[in-house]
């Protein structure tokens, strides 16, 4: 179990609650608790949001400022070094992922200002200023975030099925739905009926859907909006990354 897992179990209500708690713990600087919270926060940010932010940078004009990894890591380091900006997020009323992207652009704007003073990159500020209005980059960000959320739900469901001793059902689902294997050879291999295969797939799909709903609610999506948000995620994943 990771430090992040521990923290999530301590604060199971919502992702927002968990994040706020970590941020406040870091800001309070109360010794070990603060360090644990910082580690959990860092791991969570990297695990869920780093890839979507890389994708954004890759498809944005701010790509000219440097490697996506360098820009995003620099952003995270600055944010975690001083949690004052993170502490303002709850008042913003925005989804965390949207707020995080705005934060990156703000961070990049700061870089361009610094560079501009040396007169070497005087036009770069305008690049950053316009970055927020780049639909392709936004699309790449949403796609990568959707992939992360779907991956999280998939992994959670796999864990739940394993804990429940339903590995076989999960494997049938996995091989049929994800790898496109027909039921007939699977039924033969596992010595089960075709009906069993179909039931196993259906159960696993329900498990993934349930896990996704939980992840979305943790992300701060209102329960009544979870189904709509889930559909947006699916469409984004199906649509693929922008070319």
């Amino acid at each position, binding site marked *: 179990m990771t430090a992040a897992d521990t923290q999530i179990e301590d604060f199971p209500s919502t992702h927002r609650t968990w994040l706020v708690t970590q941020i406040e713990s870091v800001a309070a600087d109360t010794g070990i608790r603060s360090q644990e919270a910082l580690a959990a926060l860092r791991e969570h940010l990297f695990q869920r949001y780093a890839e979507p932010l890389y994708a954004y940078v890759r498809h944005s004009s701010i790509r000219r400022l440097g490697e996506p990894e360098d820009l995003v890591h620099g952003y995270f380091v600055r944010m975690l070094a001083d949690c004052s900006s993170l502490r303002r997020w709850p008042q913003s009323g925005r989804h965390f992922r949207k707020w995080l992207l705005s934060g990156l652009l703000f961070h990049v704007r700061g870089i361009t200002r610094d560079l501009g003073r040396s007169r070497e990159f005087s036009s770069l500020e305008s690049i950053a200023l316009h970055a927020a209005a780049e639909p392709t980059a936004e699309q790449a960000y949403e796609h990568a975030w959707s992939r992360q959320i779907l991956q999280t739900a998939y992994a959670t469901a796999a864990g739940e099925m394993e804990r429940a001793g339903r590995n076989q059902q999960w494997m049938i689902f996995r091989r049929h739905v994800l790898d496109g294997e027909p039921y007939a050879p699977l039924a033969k291999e596992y010595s089960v009926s*075709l*009906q069993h295969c179909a039931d196993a797939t259906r159960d696993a799909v329900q498990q993934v859907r349930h896990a996704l709903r939980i992840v979305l609610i943790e992300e701060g999506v209102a329960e009544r909006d979870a189904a709509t948000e889930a559909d947006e995620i699916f469409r984004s994943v*199906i649509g693929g990354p922008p070319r």
Partner: protein
Amino acid sequence: MDRLADAQAHRLASLLLTKTQPRRRSRRLGWIVGASAVVGLLAAIAIYSEVSLHVSMASGSSSAGRPNNQEKDMRDFEFKQLLSAVVLSGAVTATAMGEPPVEWKVSDGGNGHWYKWVKQLSGISWSSARSLCEAQGGYLATPTSLAENEFVFNLTLPTSAWANYLGPWLGGFQAPNSIEPNGGWQWVTGEPWSWTNWDELQPDNGSGLEGSLHYIHFFQRWNDWQNVPQNWSLIIEWSADCNNDNIVDYGQILSGQLLDTNTNGIPDICEVDPCPGDIIQTNTVDGVDLAVILSVWGTSGSEYPRADTNHDGIVSGPDLAVVLGAWGPCP
């Protein structure tokens, strides 16, 4: 961690997206289905209590204690199985299943055809379903457009229309020796096979024998399935207009506008009667038929509509002539 590849994520998202279409409730849910579901639910809850106690005792945990996840999962699983079995078996034992026929009205953007969901208590194969429809003057429904598919699907919303995840039969089938899994699909009516609404990864000829069309997974998508009596229900569609009045005959039969004395879904006026003088249909024209003619003389035929053999609205001399002219065994 088992990481999803792009193609896998795409497949999973497609599957989940199509499965999350909101399911609209039918306002015409039969009270018998509802009653059997309630009875089933109560029975399942009672059994669930027993199972919970049994599991708790078997695991040695206190009945007042909080069950661990494994126990809970087992209980939930068994509960779902029991609930499904009891509710569905309740539906099976109900005596009157299915819904009244409904018209997809032209004024609602429809085609004027009539549709009916029919439940077969012991299951029915696709071939038998097709024959059943034809015996009633209709055919297995052929949803050839998105709008028609939605209309037809809404007839399947009662829980008992579904055998687990297998929905009613539709009028699509695959010609023998076609290229699998996509080749040779056609409608029983001969309409063009153009618009389709397959479920994700379907058709797949999964068992190697799948060439019959049905709804699957409680939503509007289609699946190919074996021609075996695993499905419980079917959708009949009526579109015939034998008298060319631009009104589907079946609706006119239902309203009493057209007679269908042998209840085969074909109006009497469109049937070639092989033995028109056989009023009471004993395969012989004899004194009983003559007596019937005389008993309803001057009327429209009353309870013997076949007495008006020429469909002129009154039993009179010409009808008597038909009986006398056809005297003897029917051809």
